């Protein structure tokens, strides 16, 4: 019931917003998203305090027939893994709405309706336990963000958003094909149809499919997730889209939407085709590691600060993906997956902070060119401090939120291959290099003509940055709640996968 509410609340908010007009829309959206956050925290609290409660489990799931003639159910459930991502979504959406409080949008009610609609779809993706439902939510998330980018984006947005749309849709369609193949291999049940239930699909993938079919399904799904994250060589849509999208759109894309891909790897790819994973892991881990190094090197050469963050995001996600895919079916060690989940949360918070900082700099100086800026610290020391905290989180300094995840991820990759870990570890160093260098260029040094007029932070900007910085430090110092809530479910997932391949 609570899970259904988490989906329903943003949907109702979105529909209500369509009937409002004027600037009140952002307030309504903000209140709705706060309510959603409260609800998510309540769910978190329930899961945390009584993880083995039967009654609670039934409260958190909902399974009603939807399209009975083809065996599709509206089947949603909440476990620790889903909880982390739902909490991330519920935390970031109000921050994102708040970050736009001082912006003037054309048609604010439509904008915020799309944001809330997107939240509905994102939560849906994270809690769906039915292949068809998962796919529908997956696509539903794409439509609002496409229109957000198309209607409120920057220069040349027609072409760029279109490329983004087609790219991601191409991936999704191959996932759909993979899901259909799995579906057709489930046994025909009581109702006379095959089933899209996730556990039935797991069984079909693990036991029924031939090795070749399993490989095809693996690649079909991997393509969808790899494009969404994105991983080299499927990343070419990403930098342009991130730069062109309105800042809040970029935050949604990078903060939450790309986690659909990494979440998909954990929930839908690993357990579905463990044998194919065993076979193809060298290739996909290599792709992920290449994307880490490639994006880091490109980030070093960027002159536009927003584009630099876009590339750094590819690097971070590459590491997350490597950590998940390095999951060894034989040992079943869970460091990679745990690290990935922690890092998804941390990366979401950090990247939203960074894009907001880029936006603040742009709105106060009129440029994002790193070389034209400099000496902002002299004008606004407070901004400099807040920026530094977010930046340190992003380069994974101990005691910031980035550290825990990155440490576990590299540990996970290390167990798979020392070389891959060594190369992926470079990202930490390279990341520090390009982030600190850009910080130096933007914030330190002599104040010049462009930056001299850097106005003091407004109350709204302060609020957003304080919230982000608080999260960076809080989850760095005390990540235990997140680790605790997911650990049981990650272990269960790992056991399920390892047991499926033993005989």
């Amino acid at each position, binding site marked *: 019931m609570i899970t259904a509410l988490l989906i329903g609340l943003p949907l109702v908010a979105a529909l209500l917003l369509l009937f409002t007009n004027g600037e009140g829309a952002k307030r309504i959206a903000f209140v709705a998203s706060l309510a959603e956050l409260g609800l998510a925290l309540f769910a978190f609290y329930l899961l945390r305090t009584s993880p083995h409660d039967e009654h609670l489990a039934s409260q958190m799931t909902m399974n009603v027939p939807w399209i009975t*003639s*083809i065996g599709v159910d509206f089947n949603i459930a909440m476990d620790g893994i889903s909880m982390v991502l739902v909490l991330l979504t519920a935390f970031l959406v109000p921050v994102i709405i708040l970050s736009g409080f001082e912006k003037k949008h054309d048609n604010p009610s439509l904008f915020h309706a799309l944001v809330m609609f997107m939240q509905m779809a994102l939560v849906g993706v994270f809690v769906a336990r039915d292949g068809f439902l998962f796919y*529908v939510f997956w*696509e539903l998330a794409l*439509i609002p963000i496409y229109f957000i980018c*198309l209607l409120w984006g920057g220069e040349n947005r*027609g072409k760029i958003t279109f490329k983004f749309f087609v790219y991601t849709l191409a991936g999704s369609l*191959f996932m759909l*094909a993979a899901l259909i193949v799995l579906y*057709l291999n489930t046994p025909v049940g009581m109702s006379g149809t095959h089933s899209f239930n996730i556990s039935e699909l797991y069984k079909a993938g693990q036991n029924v499919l031939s090795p070749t079919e399993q490989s095809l399904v693996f690649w079909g799904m991997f393509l969808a997730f790899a494009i969404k994250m994105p991983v080299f060589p499927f990343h070419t849509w990403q930098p342009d889209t991130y730069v062109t999208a309105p800042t809040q759109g970029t935050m949604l894309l990078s903060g939450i939407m790309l986690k659909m891909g990494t979440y998909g790897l954990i929930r839908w790819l690993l357990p579905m085709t463990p044998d194919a994973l065993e076979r193809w892991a060298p290739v996909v881990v290599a792709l992920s590691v290449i994307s880490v190094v490639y994006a880091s090197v490109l980030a070093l050469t960027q002159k536009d600060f927003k584009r630099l963050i876009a590339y750094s995001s590819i690097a971070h996600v590459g590491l997350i993906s490597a950590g998940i895919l390095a999951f060894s079916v034989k040992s079943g060690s869970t460091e990679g997956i745990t690290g990935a989940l922690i890092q998804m949360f941390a990366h979401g918070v950090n990247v939203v902070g960074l894009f907001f900082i880029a936006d603040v700099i742009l709105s106060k100086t009129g440029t994002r060119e790193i070389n034209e800026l400099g000496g902002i610290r002299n004008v606004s020391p407070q901004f400099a401090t807040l920026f530094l905290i977010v930046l340190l989180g992003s380069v994974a300094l101990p005691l910031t939120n980035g550290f825990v995840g990155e440490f576990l991820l590299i540990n996970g990759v290390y167990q798979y291959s020392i070389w891959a870990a060594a190369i992926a570890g470079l990202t930490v160093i390279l990341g520090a290099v390009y982030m600190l260098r850009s910080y130096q260029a933007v914030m330190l040094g002599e104040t010049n003509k462009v930056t001299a007029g850097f106005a003091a932070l407004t109350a709204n900007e302060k609020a957003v940055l304080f919230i982000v910085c608080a999260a960076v430090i809080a989850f760095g110092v005390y990540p235990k709640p997140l680790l605790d809530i997911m650990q049981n479910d990650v272990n269960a997932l790992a056991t399920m996968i390892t047991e499926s391949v033993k005989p």
Partner: protein
Amino acid sequence: MKAILLLSGLGIIALFAELFRFRKALYPIVILGLLGTIATAVSYWWYDDGEYNKYFAGMIDFQGSAVVLSVIILSVALLWFVMSANYLRTQTSETDHTALVLFALVGALILTCYTNLTMLFLGVEILSIPLYVLAGSRKNDLGSNESAFKYFILGAFASAFLLFGIALVFGATGSFDNRAIAVFVEANKATLPGFFYGGVILMMIGLLFKISAAPFHFWAPDVYQGAPTVYTAFMSTVVKTAAIVAIMRIFLTSVFGGVGEFWIPIMGVCVGLTFVIGNLSAAVQTSVKRMLAFSSISHAGFLLLAVVAASSFSAKSIIFYTVAYSVASLVAFSVLLNIIRITGGDDVESFNGLGKKSPLLAAVMTIALLSLAGIPPTAGFFAKYYVLTAAFSSDHYWLAIIGILGSLVGVYYYFRIIIAMYFREAKEGAEYSVDAQHQALMFVTAVATIVIGLLPDLILNIGAPAAVVAETLQK
């Protein structure tokens, strides 16, 4: 059967409207008449066994899938009349047009229920001949004339193919009757003469022509573009549905189902070609009308893919697809009609800035295009999904993949319009007003597109008994 009589009567009444000067009352009469016809067709739902449904010595059998599909065709026709009322009213020969459309509908209904190959031929002809006239109904327009001429010449060719094919099948099996042919094919499968297969091929060519599948599609773009827009809409909804039903009733049942291993590969090649040619050609069009013509070719590919799959999903998926596609097409065409009326052009540029000028038109057009492109939660998505399931279930992996890639190209040309509507600036001056009737039509059909997409069971559950009928015919 009574539906067919009623519809013919309605057509004759329309012919007399000019003579007896009740032309003004014709529109309400037609709407009421169609509603009555639909009700009559529905009433057959409860008589779906025994001899009650058979007419003309068993040459037509109005039951199961026939009822469902004729109701679909008639409902789409009803919506079409609502859409075209304004256009028809401006024509001096309004009554003739109305009568011809109603007669074409009679042909379409016969195609839903024929159980004899002569009735198949009659149905195809009754459907086609009024359309030849209607395509050329703008007498002073060169494009309209060209359209009618091309349609007629090539259509006559296709009819000849169909007829020759029927003759060969008759020669081989000694019967025109569907069941008799099925029994004969079953019993003498090993010793069927070569010209039987020739007949199957010729019939297939004739019918693929009617549904405008590649490589028999060359007439479609010119005809669709030249014909008055309302008839283009009619051809790409009602006629397409009737044609796929005609194909389904012999190729998806035991009539030719027994020799599937012979024609499935051939039709499979046609489906692949249809996907490639339809989508790639649509992608390079600048005229939206012509683009919709090519895109209707690619949709014919999806319908035929379900036939090629010949699985237990096929009949239901075809029924669902025709509904989803017809409804979305009607929305797209009504928006196009309004755009042509307002801006005078049918280029993609004519849609520029529609998002600001007329949010309603832009919103319903977006829903229609999303449905045609197959994006959830619209009906078009589920339609494509279901056809793909049918294809995968009978291991037509390659065709399914080509279809998927084709629909990606589809996204390209459909989204060009969405981008034009929301991203580009409109020309100044034009007055974007839409009359209430069109507004209501668009609103209802756009909502239907989403409701059917979210609750596909609404259609599937009606389709299920129809599919059962198709399966029993299969046995």
